[in-house]
């Protein structure tokens, strides 16, 4: 069970990430308009800035809310880290995994039957094979990993 008080560093990270993202975005715009031939030309810095700010915005607002209402924030964290809620999430996730595996396999079988006899490279068939097999491979690797850890 996670300690509900350990989220404060993550919330502080949110503020830093948002400020850093805005700075990166601003630097990207300034560089692109003033110094040609840098990484900023293809809006890379601006994109990274938006990504960083977007990553930090929820933890930042959570941090602000926690300062205003510490008891409410603690309760929210308890609800998120609650062992029963965690177990329910795992069970729901496993059900979703099984459903997606069965559904993608059925679609693959139907698609294979419909395109039987068609020769040549078929990207859709390979995509369906990937969608059907990849989750099972991840599941098998994760099971072995968790068994060892």
């Amino acid at each position, binding site marked *: *069970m996670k*300690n*509900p008080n350990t989220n404060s560093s993550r919330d502080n990270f949110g503020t830093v990430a948002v400020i850093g993202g805005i700075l990166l975005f601003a630097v990207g715009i300034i560089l692109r308009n003033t110094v040609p031939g840098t990484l900023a030309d293809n809006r890379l810095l601006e994109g990274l800035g938006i990504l960083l700010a977007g990553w930090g915005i929820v933890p930042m607002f959570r941090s602000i809310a926690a300062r205003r209402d510490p008891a409410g924030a*603690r*309760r929210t964290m*308890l*609800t998120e*880290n*609650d*062992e*029963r*809620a965690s177990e329910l999430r795992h069970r729901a996730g496993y059900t979703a995994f099984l459903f997606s595996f069965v559904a993608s396999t059925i679609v693959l079988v139907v698609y294979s039957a419909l395109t039987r006899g068609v020769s040549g490279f078929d990207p859709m068939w390979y995509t369906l094979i990937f969608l059907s097999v990849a989750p099972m491979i991840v599941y098998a690797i994760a099971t072995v990993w968790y068994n060892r850890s």
Partner: protein
Amino acid sequence: MENQLEQLRTKAGLTQQELADRVDVSRQTIISLENGRYNPSILLAFRLSKLFGQPIENIFIYHEEIENEKSEH
């Protein structure tokens, strides 16, 4: 698995929310425990045991024991 959680909580004068706050879980978990719809982790069982000053087996009663007790009477 049956449990004495509701009785112990009432005896201690705690609300479900207060008990939840004391053992770091949600009120919904306490409700589910009291209704016998959820079996706690060993960590939560120890926390409850420590809070109420009772051995775990006094709070959570394994159903097989109840059946054995019934057959003895």
